[in-house]
């Protein structure tokens, strides 16, 4: 029983790290640009295919591929903000939701057209490596993904806290009007936030590729999960995102293990709905701006 619990906790934390990373990008874009990007998981899907092709065609290791994929996703994010979002920014929340859903559909159908519905995976030497840590077993690529997520979060915190650009991002997230008057080029900060958020989704895709498969609709469930995490942790709150990401991972494996796997999704979606009803600002939420995206 002790071993089972411990293993369930470890497994839960490992998936939770990836959820948190996915959610971080979504939350950054939400916090700064004030839009909910329904194509977020699809950006991850694009990154996963990129890793797959780099690996299959050029033999580039997935973890090395991040050097190409993260910047590429950054540019894709900048492109989306510039071309799709900016022209309709300030119009109704519904309009923006439609726009990002449209981007999601376009990306998915593009993937289907180009690569069919096949499941694409990469097999590396470490794909199936497992660490025997006494009472628990730990998959090596999952551990790497978790550790990298935590490191990225640490980096993100430092970046937001100590650099000018980070401060400008926070300033815009808190109050774009004031930020504008302080001389911050808010439109550029939007591009940056969308770029960074997309790059984070891309990195999540890279980290998952050694143990997950790419297919056109792989992103949908991650968009949903990231959204749940963001709402639980609080829209605009990075600390909340980490905690909520890990919490969702834990809830998923613990309820799955000790109640039934059939209810594990119900468990966190249930919590999500309860939180939305009684505490829409989330655990840590700043709560600001939720009305702008049609949540309140």
């Amino acid at each position: 029983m002790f071993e089972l619990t411990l293993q369930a906790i470890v497994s839960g934390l490992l998936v939770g790290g990836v959820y948190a990373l996915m959610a971080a990008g979504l939350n950054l874009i939400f916090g700064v640009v004030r839009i909910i990007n329904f194509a977020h998981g699809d950006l991850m899907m694009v990154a996963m295919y990129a890793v797959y092709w780099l690996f299959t065609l050029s033999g580039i290791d997935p973890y090395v591929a991040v050097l190409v994929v993260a910047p590429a996703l950054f540019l894709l994010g900048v492109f989306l903000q510039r071309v799709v979002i900016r022209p309709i920014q300030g119009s109704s929340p519904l309009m923006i939701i439609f726009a990002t859903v449209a981007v999601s559909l376009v990306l998915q159908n593009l993937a289907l057209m180009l690569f069919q519905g096949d499941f694409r995976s990469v097999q590396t030497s470490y794909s199936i490596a497992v660490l025997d840590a006494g009472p628990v077993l730990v998959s090596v690529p999952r551990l790497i993904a978790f550790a990298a997520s935590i490191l990225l979060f640490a980096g993100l915190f430092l970046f937001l806290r100590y650099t000018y650009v980070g401060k400008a991002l926070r300033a815009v997230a808190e109050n774009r009007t004031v930020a504008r008057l302080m001389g911050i080029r808010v439109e550029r900060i939007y591009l940056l936030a969308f770029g960074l958020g997309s790059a984070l989704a891309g990195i999540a895709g890279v980290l998952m590729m050694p143990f997950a498969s790419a297919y056109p609709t792989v992103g949908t469930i991650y968009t949903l999960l990231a959204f749940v995490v963001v709402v639980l942790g609080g829209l605009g709150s990075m600390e909340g995102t980490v905690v909520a990401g890990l919490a969702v991972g834990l809830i998923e494996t613990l309820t799955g293990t000790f109640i039934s796997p059939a209810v594990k999704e119900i468990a966190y979606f249930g919590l999500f709905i309860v939180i939305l009803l009684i505490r829409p600002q989330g655990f840590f939420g700043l709560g600001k701006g939720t009305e702008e995206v049609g949540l309140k």
Partner: protein
Amino acid sequence: MKRAGTIAGVLILLLGALLLSPAALAQQEIRIGAIYPRSGSLALLGEESWRGAEIARQERNEAGGILGRQIVFVNADAPNVNAARSEAERLISQQGVQLLIGTYSSALSMAASEAAARRGVTFFELGAISDGITQRGYKTVFRTNPTASMFVAAQMAFLRDWMAPQMGKEPEQLRVAIAHEDSDYGTSVAENMRREAERLGLNLVSVQPYSSTSTDLSSVILRLRAASPDVIVAVSYAQDAILLQRQAHELGLRSKVVGTGGGHSLSSFYEALGDLAEGVFNVDFTQYEVNTAFTPGLEEFRERYRATFGEEPRSGHSLANYMGAHVLFDIIERSGGSLDPERIRASTLSYVVRPGQLATGWGVRFDETGQNVGATPLVTQWRGGKLVTVWPEQAAVMAPVLIE
């Protein structure tokens, strides 16, 4: 005289033009509506299924068609249940199609075949396995492929007759666990399994439902591990089959695995898992590594598939649809090229083929419900990157083994 000759010449020309006009050509063609999910999440196997039927169509047309008439598919994409229903209705009412085939997915099949049956139009299912499709009393709905309960029967027979003795156990000592995705499909198959396992006296130790869209199945594995089964019977789609196998390895669960078609038979299962796929059993439609003496025409199909689509078939779904389409064409031929539902039904019920004669090796004999009860699923095993048929013996290319 000269004048009469001119008139005759003009008449002949007119007649010729009439015969060659598109309308006249269309009269000659046999038009069949082909409903498959070709976009959306079911696209992979939907497309794969369609390809099989399409190859049969091309082959038959090249060989002169049905009684000299060419076969034309009116293709419709049905990514979801609503689309399946509305596309079936559209093909019938707007395109004037009198016979429909499809669909790969049971939910889509239920919807499309119901729409057809309500209008008295014949529907041939060539690939979906849910038992219910042929159990609704519709006189115009038929199925060429085996049902889910036929899968389960084959699977449990394999466990009792081969697996238990191989492990040196009596059937009642064989610890069996079931892991199934929790949609209607997985749930009903799992329920069949439970009953069949009990009927055969196997020791069922755990049943774990899960959502096929799960991103993580560690809890399923942990629960299974706690029940320490000898063998896990899984009912999975593509993504979750891979995830189950990978996470079983990650969490140290070493039981044998027997899949139930679906995800366990896809080439992507091996591509994703490599060595982790080695030795995994599966019960499925006929696959390509099979004793071809039992499946005449399979090699030709495979070559034609490669030539047409530039790659290897991705699963046995195309083959099943290929075989089913040919059976349907034979049946239409036997009803004199007529698509009249009653004549089709009569020739369907009287059409019999012994096992080992067609490209899937399946026999053909339709019962009153419209189900082909001559079709039998085969047990396959992943060996060195190939899904080889291992059981029953007459179809096997290798003997099954337990791989540690």
